């Protein structure tokens, strides 16, 4: 991933760059490993929007996205000593963010399944637990779906139904504007695998959205 950290940590910049990461990343990592609070603050301020945005794209819930984004930075704070620079800092952060967001999604799905099972045994008028996200509607009126926002909402619903790897690749490409190489680094896969993931994701989405397009 390209270096994107215009840091102004003048006291921390005289550091030899480990192989694989650029000097700004290396300086930031070295400062973080020394326990510099200024470096941690700089890291958070540089990446908080991107990490939060990525997590929010996957979870579609502001509270959960905030919680997971915080978890990412807490993990960075606690494990930065073990960071050896095999990947760039940005790649590592995106990797943490996507894996934690997917874990949160799986947990929410498991809770939803459990809530469904318990609802079968309980009274039908029991309220739904607050921590279970309702399934977004996917059967809106076709005419209403012509509206741009509704089409986008439908797209998001369908993206959420893609397999995890395709979902992450699609969102990193189309919402975070990452290059194919960057996505490959985040997913720990090859460039051709990313091309394949994106091709299949687009194909599936187009197929599912086709009935809702205006010409249909």
């Amino acid at each position, binding site marked *: 991933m390209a270096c994107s950290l215009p840091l102004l940590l003048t006291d921390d910049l005289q550091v030899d760059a480990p192989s694989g990461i650029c000097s700004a990343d290396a300086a930031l990592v070295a400062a973080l490993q020394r326990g510099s609070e200024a470096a941690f603050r700089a890291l*958070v301020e540089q990446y908080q*929007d991107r990490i939060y945005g990525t997590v929010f794209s996957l979870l579609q819930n*502001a509270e959960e996205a*905030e919680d997971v984004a*915080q978890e990412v930075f807490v993990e960075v704070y606690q494990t930065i000593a073990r960071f050896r620079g095999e990947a760039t800092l940005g790649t590592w952060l995106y990797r943490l963010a996507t894996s934690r967001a997917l874990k949160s999604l799986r947990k929410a799905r498991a809770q939803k399944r459990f809530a469904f099972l318990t609802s079968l045994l309980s009274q039908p008028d029991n309220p739904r637990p607050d921590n279970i996200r309702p399934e977004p509607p996917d059967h809106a009126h076709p005419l209403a779906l012509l509206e741009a926002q509704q089409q986008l909402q439908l797209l998001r619903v369908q993206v959420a139904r893609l397999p995890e790897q395709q979902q992450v690749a699609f969102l990193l490409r*189309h919402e975070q504007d990452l290059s194919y190489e960057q996505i490959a680094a985040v997913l720990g896969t090859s460039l051709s695998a990313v091309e394949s993931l994106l091709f299949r994701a687009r194909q599936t989405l187009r197929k599912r959205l086709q009935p809702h397009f205006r*010409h249909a």
Partner: protein
Amino acid sequence: MPDSAFDPTPDEEWAALMRRLRAQPPARPRPFFYARLTARLTAPVPARPMPLPAWLRRPAYAVLLGAVVLTLSGDGRVLPPLVLPAALGGSSVPPR
């Protein structure tokens, strides 16, 4: 007059949808994200749960569990003694 000539093709609709997706304002965390993060980092860590379940840590339950284990792991005193047949060199008289 039908306006089918002006209807976008599926490719155009898809491209427009992708453009709209990219044009969406990015989701941002609420203000003071760093302050909330540092508060979380400095918050006292909750005590780790004990390796044993709570009910097992109660003495009464522990004693009861011990009694059950002792009862079930009998060493043969409650069973009738083993008597080997004479053909195998055993005694027909049960040992006292």
